[in-house]
């Protein structure tokens, strides 16, 4: 008799908890994969496709489902790969060889004398950073350009250049402090250890 009561109590508990879990699964259902959004927030949103996926979100989805490595994004650089590694608890790996190495921020510039107004680059730009109309001169809005280079290939007259932005007093940053004292001492210790 005792054993039956025990079984009944456990079964009732299991039923109740199961019902609660089942309700929670429906009531608090999370739309989409939250990890994908977190990964996407780290990616630089250049939408350049250099990772082999058509845009940052698809790459984020591929990482989330374990189909892609975390070191395929050149605009994000090694810093981005490190952040992804931290988020996902994976091992950090520097940028893979098959993708190009890190670059400074560059923007596309249309050489206006040569532009024929074909609108092909406008269609290629993933972030709507090029303005213009058919048979009118096109221009890249510098502040919106992510430097993804997707407009270079479609241009039939090769009138788009990639240019690095010059540094101005507004974008300049204080350099890291040179640690004369400590470094010198550290080197001395190293040389002593080598003896």
């Amino acid at each position, binding site marked *: 008799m005792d054993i039956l009561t025990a079984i009944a109590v456990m079964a009732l508990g299991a039923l109740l908890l199961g019902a609660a879990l089942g309700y929670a699964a429906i009531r608090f259902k999370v739309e989409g994969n939250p990890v994908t959004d977190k990964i*996407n927030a780290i*990616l*630089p*949103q*250049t*939408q350049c496709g250099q990772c082999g996926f058509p*845009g*940052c979100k698809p790459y984020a989805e591929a990482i989330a489902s374990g189909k892609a490595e975390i070191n395929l994004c050149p605009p994000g650089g090694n810093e981005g790969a490190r952040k992804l590694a931290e988020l996902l608890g994976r091992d950090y790996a520097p940028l893979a060889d098959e993708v190009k190495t890190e670059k400074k921020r560059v923007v596309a510039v249309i050489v206006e004398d040569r532009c024929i107004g074909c609108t092909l680059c406008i269609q290629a730009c*993933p*972030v*709507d*950073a090029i303005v213009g109309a058919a048979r009118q001169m096109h221009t890249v809005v510098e502040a*919106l350009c*992510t430097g993804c280079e997707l407009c270079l290939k479609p241009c039939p007259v090769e009138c788009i250049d990639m240019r690095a932005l010059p*540094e*101005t*007093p507004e*974008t*300049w*940053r*204080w*350099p*890291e*402090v040179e*640690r*004369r*004292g*400590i470094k*010198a001492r550290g080197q001395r210790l190293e040389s002593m250890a080598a003896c």
Partner: protein
Amino acid sequence: MLRTLFSFPGGIKPDPHKEASARTPIAPVPLPERLVLPLRQSAGIAPLPTVRVGERVKKGQVVAAAEQWISASLHAPTSGKVADIGNYPLAHPSGLPAPAIVIEADGLDEWQERQPLDWQNLAPQAVLRYLQQSGVVGLGGAVFPSHVKLDTEARIEELIINGAECEPYITCDDRLMRERAAEIVSGIALLRDLTGARQTLIAIENNKPEAIRAMRGAISEHRENFAVITLPTRYPAGSLRQLVYALTGKRAPSNVLPTAMNVQCFNVATVHSIWRATAHGEPVVRRVVTVSGNVRAPKNWEAPIGMSMTALLQLSEPFSDTDGLIVGGPMMGLSLPLTNAPITKGSNCLIARSPRIFPPRPPESPCIRCTACAQACPQGLQPFELYWWSRARNFDKAADYALAECIECGCCAYVCPAAIPLVHYFRFAKGELAAAAREQKMADSAKSRFEFRQFRAEREKAEKAEKLAKAAAAQAAKQALAAATKSATFEEQAQNAVASSQEERH
């Protein structure tokens, strides 16, 4: 008047070095031949040039006009010809050039027509616009446009006039208060009327007895009820947050504006320039600059904006071992090589540097967390923690320790027994954080544009499909109709045929 002063935490008492330059009156500067006017002279957005190369300008004429609200116009400091508009070096730690207008003086120093402003009979907004067009910005060093500070809905309880001048060597505000107290007091009355402040407090450190006396004299002459508050000399008593706390006991984090605490604060030199602009129609084309340090004749000069720093230094006869300049005070200023960069509205002091006066910093040794920096910090921060995270490039952690609240006053680095250049670490970390925030903003905007583009593509596809479906439906309907009419005629014919055949049978 007795008033309880609040005591902000920390602070230091460095050697003031003020007597040398405070002894002699403000001296005029012989007119330089060439003036370089960087467009960005204030916080906010730089004004846009309104003159062309080769154009003749008169003294006080607008050469670059403010197009946005947080921006102030720029004026020709003397009459002459616009020689160039291009990139010129600035007094900036980067040494990078920035857009500037160059004026070649014609030696006449001829003013444009000057008219006092009838500010008492104007709407406050009109006065603010006038101040913007006169290029009035905070001359204490932060160069924030004054009209923006006055443009507030908040009720101002205390109007604070900052004559503390707490940094060593600098005496330009001291001399200005001694010599032009009457004009400053008139300017304060104007600001009091504009803000409707209940109380007006003029804060001066107790190491400037002559300035205090001059200001009190001018106040009683003008029959005003402004209170001159004598502050104990302690750096950084003249810093905005510390000053507001000392006088009113109000405190708030850095993202809360003083107006939110019902306080507003102006530097005495700014007040003076506001008075010159309204009562004399003179825009900001010159300022008082302290030249001190390794020079034979330390002095305050009234220099035109745009004058070369080295040329101004030469007037005070620097000694031959001078190897550089400090622009601003020794605590917060920038250490630069001898530069031809121009004086701007924010340049309050030039200090000639020499290894004798400013010996090179000893090499940095490890931090032992002695917390001397935390005791000296007037913002109540823990600089040793900030240092640790900044050095480790863990900037988010540094931000958690309230890096944004750091005012870069340099007290921590001054007291650090390990000679760690703490402020440099904090500036580095702040720069990296700002850059990361900028990049994040760009990425967010790129993301939203990318997503909208995809949405647009989908929508266009859907619209096209709908259009096609509609066209197909129309086509089908047409065909059906055609078929129907065709069959109708066929039936008719058939009926006619049947009828005729029946007739034939009869």
